[in-house]
């Protein structure tokens, strides 16, 4: 990884510390600064309230010219998070063809926060969950809360 990329990550970390989105905590390891561990509380009022989610943000070697990779380490019932052991998330500014080098990690964290408040079923990675979210919101809420209880306590 180039020194430029490291400098950039350090700078971004500083910014995240100064302006952390609500309910988030970042564990930063200086030895391995390309992997951030983010602890996040389910936003109040959403189906995920009360849950504690662990996420990993991985910065590729080409960062900031390629987007960081976000994955949920805690299982979550969400149309935009893949329902497998990867828990990957790939939408909006995280897409390689939409990522812009001047984007900030803070923006990524906000995006995640907003998605938990309001999932985006039109850009989903799990079509069946997205369908449920659109057509049977009650069932979706129940499942989501169920998963929070099971995995995210």
């Amino acid at each position, binding site marked *: 990884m180039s020194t430029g990329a490291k400098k950039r990550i350090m700078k971004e970390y500083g910014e995240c510390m100064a302006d952390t989105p609500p309910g988030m905590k970042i564990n930063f390891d200086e030895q391995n600064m390309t992997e951030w561990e983010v602890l996040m509380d389910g936003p109040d009022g959403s189906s995920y309230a009360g849950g504690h989610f662990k996420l990993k943000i991985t910065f590729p070697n080409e960062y900031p010219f*390629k*987007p960081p990779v976000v994955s949920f380490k805690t299982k979550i019932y969400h149309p935009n998070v893949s329902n497998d052991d990867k828990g990957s998330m790939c939408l909006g500014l995280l897409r390689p*063809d939409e990522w812009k080098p*001047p984007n900030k990690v803070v923006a990524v964290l906000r995006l995640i926060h907003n998605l938990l408040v309001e999932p985006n079923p039109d850009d989903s990675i799990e079509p069946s969950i997205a369908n449920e979210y659109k057509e049977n919101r009650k069932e979706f809420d129940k499942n989501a809360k169920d998963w929070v209880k099971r995995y995210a306590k």
Partner: protein
Amino acid sequence: MASDDELAQLEKLSNEWEPEPQGPLVGERKSSSAITVEYANADPIYRIKTAALPQKYAFFRTCRGDGHCGWRAVAFGYYEALLRGGDANKLEEEVVRLRSMNNLLNSIGFQEDLYEDFADEVYELLRRLAASLRAMDGTTAALLLEAFNDMGRSMAIITYLKLLASAWLQNHEARFADFIIGYPSLKAYCQHNIEAAQCEMDHLAMQALAECVVKAGGLALEVLYLDRSEGTEISPYREVPENVANPPTIRILYRPGHYDILYKAEDFAPPAQQQPIPTQPPLQVALAGYTEEFVPMASHLSDVMTLIPGMYPPALGQRWPSLSYDYNSSPAPVPTYAPAPTPAAPVTSSHQDFASPVHASYAHHGAHSHHGIHLEPPVTLPIHPPPPMSLDRGPPLTLERTAPVERGGPFRPSVYELEPGFGGCGQPHAMPFQTSIFRNSHYNTAHFLNPDFQPEEWSPDTEYATGNRGRHKSTSQ
């Protein structure tokens, strides 16, 4: 049997698959006949168009086809065209000019702390190239190529250009807005097609760069479209700055989906006064100095030496008045006889570099009366192209060499020349240039770093023509 979902997934993957791009980010300069060869089996339109290419555009340079090639080609071309101008101050002016464009970036809402890293790479490279140009250390081109092949630095420079292009378009919304189809606004278009990390350069971006980076920097941009349109020649598209005569030109070859860099042969033989380092000063001497090749060089020297009183035999006195003491340092004397086979280098102070070692060793080697003569740096040496005698090599020359006392040169014979073993071959001329400093310098064409590298050739004929010659060679080295 896989389910429909899985099949759809696989199909999606296979559609999205792209081969890993190969090759360096920016390649070495190559002869553009390689392009002709590449299209030899393509359809006739391409074949005809590429067949005409190498005559007009002698060289090209590949850019890796990773989706950034257009940006990279323009960025590399920009630096290279600035270097071709040969003016280190110009590069530093560009730093100032680009810095002033921060206002443009800020006005569009880019935050300075986010683009400054990218901008710094751009300035840094300009400054380093300027320093290298000033030092004349010959590493400028290598420095540029190295920087562009470093993924991080090259991407930072590209990103900066993308932001500039986007800001430029948005600042001239009235002119460009009508070209946007399928996006709610010019801003949305720029975010998707210009600022995004993975996006190829499109026409609008090219136009924006041509205006805000290339033309404003006093350079010209030429894009050649190699496509299946009508015609037998590749259609060029030119953007030329106003008020700049003969601007250095960035030439880009566009093939649908890919950009490379093109060069005309004359890009590398610009007007002599613009040349940072003379490519081949006439005083350069091949190592194989004992061959006939050397004779013209000796005649340059003789011209130099005629400047010094008492250095010429009476028979040549009539030449004296034409070579006056008070040489004006700026214009090189117009050659009145044979045209130069090598481009005549300008008479500039840089020539002292080549001339002074010659002088020093000559004084050492020649008659002792030369010792007191100094050519101080302000004195410039007229460099004449070789006389036509180089055309008729052969017996007459050999005759001269075997009887050095009678040769027609402007030198008064030295006592050493009369000694046995001195004459009879070209050695005395070659020896002054065989200093270890010169032999190991990249000004020597036999040195691998010389841009006109020409390996020393061993020719058995000359080696064994006379035993005397061969023996002399071995003793002189």
